[in-house]
C-alpha cells in the first residue's frame, strides 16, 4: 500500500521534473550551453504565482497569463543579447559563468523584494485529495502534474507538427544545414531559448501550488535537473522526460527504506553511474558524443 502510494507520489513528482528538464534540454540542444539560471527562473515564476495569489487574491494559475509570455521574451533576449554574443571557443565556460551570475541576481532580487522568509501559497483546495485504487492523490499535486503533462504535450506537438518546431529541431541537429535550407537559425535559436524559459514559468507555477519557496531554493533543483538531463541523454527531450519519471519514482520509493536525506542522493548516483557506464545517456540522445 505504502509502495503504491509512493509510486503515485513519485510519478506526480516525476512529471514536474520532466517539464523542468525539458527546458534545460532545449538550451543545451540549441547552444551547448549549461543554463544554471533555469531553476532560478523557476523559483522566480513560483514567487510571481505566490505574489499573484497573496497580493491580488486570484488563482495562482492565472499568473501564467503573464509569466509565460514574459519568460518567453526574457529567454529570447537572454539568448540574442547575451549568449549568442559569446565566442564559440569560450561558450561553454562563459555561459556557465553568465547564467550562474543571473541565478545569483535573481536570488538576490527575490530576497530583496520578498525577504528570505519561506512562502507557501494558501489555497482553499490545498489539502483536498481523492482516493485512487487505495492511494490518496492530492488535488494540487494532480494539477501540477496535469500542467506538466499538458505543457510537455504542447511542446511535443509544437516540435513535431509545426514549421517552427521543425526549424528548431533542424537548428539543434545541424545548424549549418539548417541555414542552408533557409532557416533563420539565429532567430530560431532565440525563440527556442524563449520556449525553454517558458517551461520554467509553467513549472514554477506548478511548483508553487504545493511547496514552500524561498529565494535560494533553486540550488536544490538545479542539481537533480542536471542529473536528469545527463541520464536522459543530453539534448533529448523524450529522454529527459523518461529519466525524470524514473528518477522521480526512484527518489520517492527510496525514501521508504532510506529516509528523505539519503533518497535525494539517487540523482547523483544516477549521474555518476551514467557518466561511468553510458555517457551518452540511457534514453537516446546523441549529443553527448559531441559534448
Amino acid at each position, binding site marked *: 500500500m505504502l509502495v503504491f502510494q509512493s509510486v503515485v507520489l513519485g510519478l506526480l*513528482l516525476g512529471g514536474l521534473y520532466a517539464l523542468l528538464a525539458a527546458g534545460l534540454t532545449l538550451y543545451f540542444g540549441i547552444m551547448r550551453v549549461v543554463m544554471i539560471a533555469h531553476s532560478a527562473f523557476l523559483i522566480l515564476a513560483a514567487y510571481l504565482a505566490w505574489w499573484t495569489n497573496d497580493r491580488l487574491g486570484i488563482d495562482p494559475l492565472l499568473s501564467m497569463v503573464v509569466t509565460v509570455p514574459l519568460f518567453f521574451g526574457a529567454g529570447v533576449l537572454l539568448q540574442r543579447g547575451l549568449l549568442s554574443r559569446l565566442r564559440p571557443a569560450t561558450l561553454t565556460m562563459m555561459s556557465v559563468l553568465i547564467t550562474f551570475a543571473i541565478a545569483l541576481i535573481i536570488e538576490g532580487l527575490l530576497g530583496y523584494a520578498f525577504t528570505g522568509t519561506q512562502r507557501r501559497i494558501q489555497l482553499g483546495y490545498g489539502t483536498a485529495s481523492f482516493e485512487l485504487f487505495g492511494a490518496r492523490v492530492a488535488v494540487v499535486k494532480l494539477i501540477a502534474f496535469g500542467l506538466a503533462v499538458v505543457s510537455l504535450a504542447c511542446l511535443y506537438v509544437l516540435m513535431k507538427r509545426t514549421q517552427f518546431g521543425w526549424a528548431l529541431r533542424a537548428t539543434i541537429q545541424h545548424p549549418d544545414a539548417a541555414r542552408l535550407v533557409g532557416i533563420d537559425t539565429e532567430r530560431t535559436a532565440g525563440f527556442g531559448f524563449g520556449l525553454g524559459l517558458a517551461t520554467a514559468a509553467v513549472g514554477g507555477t506548478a511548483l508553487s501550488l504545493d*511547496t514552500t519557496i524561498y529565494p535560494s531554493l533553486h540550488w536544490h533543483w538545479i542539481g537533480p535537473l542536471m542529473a536528469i538531463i545527463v541520464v536522459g541523454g543530453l539534448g533529448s527531450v523524450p529522454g529527459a522526460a523518461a529519466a525524470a519519471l524514473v528518477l522521480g519514482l526512484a527518489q520517492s520509493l527510496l525514501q521508504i527504506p532510506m529516509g528523505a536525506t539519503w533518497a535525494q542522493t539517487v540523482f547523483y548516483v544516477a549521474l555518476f553511474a551514467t557518466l561511468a557506464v553510458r555517457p551518452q545517456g540511457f534514453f537516446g540522445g546523441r549529443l553527448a558524443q559531441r559534448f
Partner: protein
Amino acid sequence: MHSPARRTTWAVALSATLLLAACGGGGDDEEGGGSGDPIVVGISLPLTGDFSEPGKGVQEGYEAWAKITNDKGGLLGRQIELKILDDQSNADRVVADYEQLIGSDQVDLVVGPFSTRLVVPSARVAQEYGMLFVEPAGAAAEVFNQGFKNLFYAAPAVADDHYNHLAEYLLALPAGQKPATVAYAAMDDPFAQGTAYGLKKKLEAGGVKTVVNEVYPPNTTDFGSIAAKIAAAKPDMVVGGSQYQDGVNLIVALQQLNYQPKLAAFSTAPTSPEFAKAIGNKTEGILSPTGYSQDAPYESNKEFVEKFKAQFGKVPEEDQANGYTTGQVVAAAVQAAGCAEQGECQQKLIDWLHGNTVDTVVGPLKWDATGKPQGAHMIQQWIGDDIKIVLPADAKEADMVYPKPAW
C-alpha cells in the same frame, strides 16, 4: 524559538551587507558609564545577518523591559540604560562585543545574545570576567554541558523538556486510551529534533511504541513521501519536530493523504499567527508546546502585554518575551542582592539565582547548577478557531480535547 541552522545564502549575505550599511552606527550613540547613576546593561544582538529577525525581536523585549522598569522608578532607584551592539550574527564578532562591553565600556551588567551559536562564545567571555550571564535563547544541550557556572537560560525549558507536560498527561491515561503507536518526523536540527526526541524518549520509556522515525534535512520542501510513510503506518499519534514552514508542509501533506491521528503535536509552527491560514484553517486539535503565551495567567504577563502593545503597537511574541524574561530574571537578582556593578556583586547575583525561583511572564523559573531551567513548556491546542493553553492544569484556558477531532 528559532533554528541556529538558518540558511546562509548569497541573498541573505547581500541584504545583510545592505542592512549593515543602512543601520551602521546605530546603538553606539549612548555613552556608557561606570557605576555612576544609571545601571548600564551591555548586550550584543544579531541585528543583521542570519538571526536578524529573532535578534530584533529580542531587542524589543529588552527595550520593553527597560522602559517598563524605568517608568516604575528603575532598579535600586537607578535608571536602566541599554547599550546594544550589533554582532551581525557572527560568533567572532560577538566575543569582541562582550569584551568591549565589559572591559572598556565597564557596563554594570551583561545579558545574552540570540541563538546557541552566539550564546556559548559570549557566555565564555562573561565567565572570564566573572559576570552573571542570563540569556534568552540558547536552548540546545551544548549550552549546558560547557561547565558554565554563571549562565542562566531565561525560559521555562530546554528543547528536550518542551513536551514534558504532554508526556505526563499521556502516560497517566488509562491503558485503553493511551496512544499505542506514534510516528515522529523531525528536522535535522538540534532544537527541532530535541523537542520531538525529548517526547519520544519519555513515551518509549512509558511503553508507547515508535512506528515511524523520520529525520529530514532543513531544506526539504516535498513532504509527500514522509507523509505517505506515516499515513501507511496508521499511528495513533504524530509528532513533528518542526520549525515553521516544514511543520506547515508536513501537516498539509498528511491532510492530503487523509490521515486522521488521535493526536497531532508539532513544535513552533502551530503557535505562529499565520498558521491557521497557511493550512487552510484545518487546525482542529493540533497541539504545540509554547514557551510563551500572551494569554498565560502569570502576574507580570498582563502588564507586559499591555505595555508592550502601547510601546510597539503590536502584541509580543516569544522572542520579545524571552528578552523581557531575561530582564526580569536579572532584575530579581539585583533587587535581592542590592547591587548592580562589576566585581564581587556579580557572584552575589549568581549565587542568589542558583538558590531561588523567579516569577516571570513565562511563569516561575528555577535552574540547576548548569543554568538549565527546571520547567516545561505550556501545551497549547487548537480548539475551534483559537489556540488555547491546555496543559499544565494550573495555567490552562481550556480542557484538552483527546482524541482530537478530524482535521
